[in-house]
C-alpha cells in the first residue's frame, strides 16, 4: 500500500481542491483528511459517517474546591499561567504537565483524560474516508493527525485498497511532520506568490529532511508568470518533479459552491488536467 500526502507551505493554495480532484480520478483509494485544524475536505466529499470515535490526549487537571486550601502553590509553579486567581484551571492554557497535582499539599488536584476532538470513518462517493474534528482551542493536532493517518492505513488494508491519499496539514510544524511520517510521496501544491514561494522552500526542506520523493503542482498559473518560472526552476534544481500546472480560474470556486470536485464540475477542462497530473504521479509511484 502506498501513501501520497498532499501538502502546501501555507493554507489557501488550493490543496483541498487538488485532493478532491485527485480523489475523482485514478484507482480506488482511501481518503484521509489530516488537515485537522481546518478540515474542509468533507465539504466537498459529503461523507456518510459510519463510525465516530472520541479522541483523548493528555490529562485534564481538576481542582476540588472542597479540598483546596487556597495555598497558591499550584498557580505559583504552573509555568503556563493556566490557573486563575480563584484556583480554577483555564483549559485553553493548560498543557497538562502535571506540576499542579505534584505540588499540591492538599491532594486537591485530580487528573482526568482530556477529550480533544473526534475522528470518523465514513463512506463517500469516491471511497472510504477517515477524517477528524479537533476541539475548538485544543492542541495536540499532531497526535490526532497520527491517529487519522494510522486509521486510514488500517481501513485501506482491510478493504484491500492499494492507495491512501492524504490531505496534509499546512505549515511546517508538528502536524505536518505527523502527516508526512510513513508517506511514500509528498505532493507539494505551490502558488505563484512571493510568500508561497518562500513557504515552498521551507516545506521542501522538510520533505528533504525526511528523504521523501516529492512532486509539485503549480496552482493559479497565469497570475504571475515570472514567479511561475521561478517555481519551475526551483523544482528542477531540487529534484522535485513537476506533476502539472493548473490555471488561476474561477472554476475552482464555482465547483466549491456546488460542492463538487473540479473533475466532476469541469470534466473536459480541469478534469483532463487532473487526469494528466494523476498519470504523471502514477509513473513515479
Amino acid at each position, binding site marked *: 500500500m502506498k501513501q501520497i500526502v498532499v501538502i502546501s*507551505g*501555507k*493554507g*489557501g*493554495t488550493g490543496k*483541498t481542491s487538488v485532493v478532491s480532484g485527485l480523489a475523482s480520478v485514478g484507482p480506488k483509494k482511501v481518503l484521509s483528511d489530516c488537515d485537522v*485544524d*481546518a478540515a*474542509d475536505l468533507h*465539504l466537498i466529499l459529503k461523507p456518510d459517517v459510519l463510525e465516530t470515535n472520541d479522541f483523548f490526549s*493528555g*490529562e485534564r487537571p481538576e481542582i476540588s474546591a472542597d479540598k483546596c486550601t487556597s495555598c497558591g502553590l499550584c498557580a505559583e*509553579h504552573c*509555568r*503556563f499561567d493556566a490557573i486563575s486567581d480563584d484556583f480554577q484551571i483555564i483549559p*485553553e*492554557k493548560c*498543557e*497538562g*504537565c*502535571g*506540576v499542579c497535582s*505534584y*505540588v499540591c499539599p492538599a491532594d486537591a488536584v485530580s487528573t482526568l483524560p482530556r477529550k480533544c476532538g473526534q475522528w470518523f470513518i465514513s463512506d463517500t462517493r469516491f471511497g472510504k474516508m477517515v477524517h477528524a474534528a*479537533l476541539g*475548538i*482551542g*485544543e*492542541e495536540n*493536532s*499532531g497526535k490526532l493527525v497520527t491517529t487519522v493517518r494510522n486509521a486510514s492505513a488500517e481501513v485501506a488494508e482491510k478493504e484491500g485498497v492499494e492507495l491512501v491519499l492524504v490531505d496534509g496539514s*499546512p*505549515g*511546517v*510544524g*508538528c502536524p505536518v*511532520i505527523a502527516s508526512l511520517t510513513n508517506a511514500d510521496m509528498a505532493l507539494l501544491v505551490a*502558488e*505563484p*506568490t*512571493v*510568500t508561497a514561494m*518562500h*513557504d515552498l522552500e*521551507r516545506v521542501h*526542506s*522538510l520533505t528533504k*529532511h525526511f528523504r521523501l520523493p516529492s512532486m509539485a503542482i503549480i496552482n*493559479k498559473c497565469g*497570475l*504571475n508568470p515570472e*514567479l511561475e518560472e521561478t517555481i519551475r526552476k526551483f523544482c528542477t534544481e531540487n529534484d522535485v518533479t513537476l506533476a502539472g500546472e493548473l490555471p*488561476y480560474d*474561477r472554476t475552482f*470556486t464555482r465547483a*466549491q*459552491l456546488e*460542492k463538487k470536485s473540479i473533475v466532476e464540475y469541469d470534466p473536459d477542462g480541469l478534469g483532463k488536467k487532473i487526469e494528466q497530473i494523476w498519470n504523471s504521479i502514477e509513473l513515479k509511484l
Partner: protein
Amino acid sequence: MRIAIASGKGGTGKTTVAVNLAAYLDSQDIDTGFIDCDVEEPNAHFFLKPELGPAKEETLPVPEIITDKCLGESCKKCIEQCRFKSLIWMVSEVLVFAELCHGCGLCELACPADAITEGKRVVGTTSTGKAGDINFATALLKIGEAMSPPLIKAVKKADSKSEVVITDCPPGTSCPVIEAIEGSDFVVLVTEPTPFGLHDLDLAVQLLKILKYKFGVVINRSGMGDNSVEEYLNKNNIPLLGSLPHSRDAASTYSSGDLLWDKIPGFKQEYEKIWNSIIKLTSGAA
C-alpha cells in the same frame, strides 16, 4: 490598542488585510506597530519590507542532568513524572529529548538528588525594525520545532509603545492563535465568501466566543462566491467591518508582494470603513 487579525484557516487574506490596514493607519499619521505572530510562516515582511535589526535567539528552559549527582537506575523519578516522554533511560543515564520538552519544570521538582538544573534551547528567532514609520517585529520558528506559543509570546513583547499595534495571527483555532490573540482589544476575522471560508470562519467565531473577545469580520475577495457568509453574519449578529472586492488585479498585485490599499480603486475607502468600524466597536471599552 491591540488589534489581532485572525482567520480560521490560512490563505483567506489575513496577512493582506493586516499589512494593508497597518499601512493605511500609518498614512493617517497614527503611530502604528506591526507584529507578525505567524511564526511558522511569517510573511508580513514581504509586504511591509522593514529594515530589520539582527535576529535574536529565543530560548525555552530545558532540563540538564548533572550525571555526577544523579542516583541513576534506582530512581528514574524524573522519567516517570514527565508527561511528554521527553526523558528516557538510555544505557546508564537519563537522556533529554529537548524537542519534546515543554519546559514545565516538573522533573526538576521531582528529582530527589538536585541532579537537574535548567538549561536552554533555541526555539527560533525574533527581530525588530522599522517599515517606514511602522514599528515592526517578526519571528521565525525553527524548522521541525513544535513549541510556537513561547516564541509568539516573545515577539509580542517587542512593541508596547505604539498607539495601535496590529498583530498578524497564525491560522487555526488552537494554542498558537490563542497565544497570539491574548491581550487584544479587538479581533478582526478575515474570511472569503465560499463554503470553505464559511466553515472555517464559524470555527474561529466559536473560539472567540469561548475566549470572550470583541470581534468583527472582513470579507476578502467579495463577489467571488456566494452570500452565505453575509447571511451567517446577519443571523449571528456579527458586525461586518468591510468587504474587499474580488479582482484579478488584487490577486496579481498581492502575488508580487505589493501593498494594495492605495492601488486598487475602492480599497482605501474600504480600509477607512474597517478602521472606523473598529473604533466604533471598541470605544465602549476604551
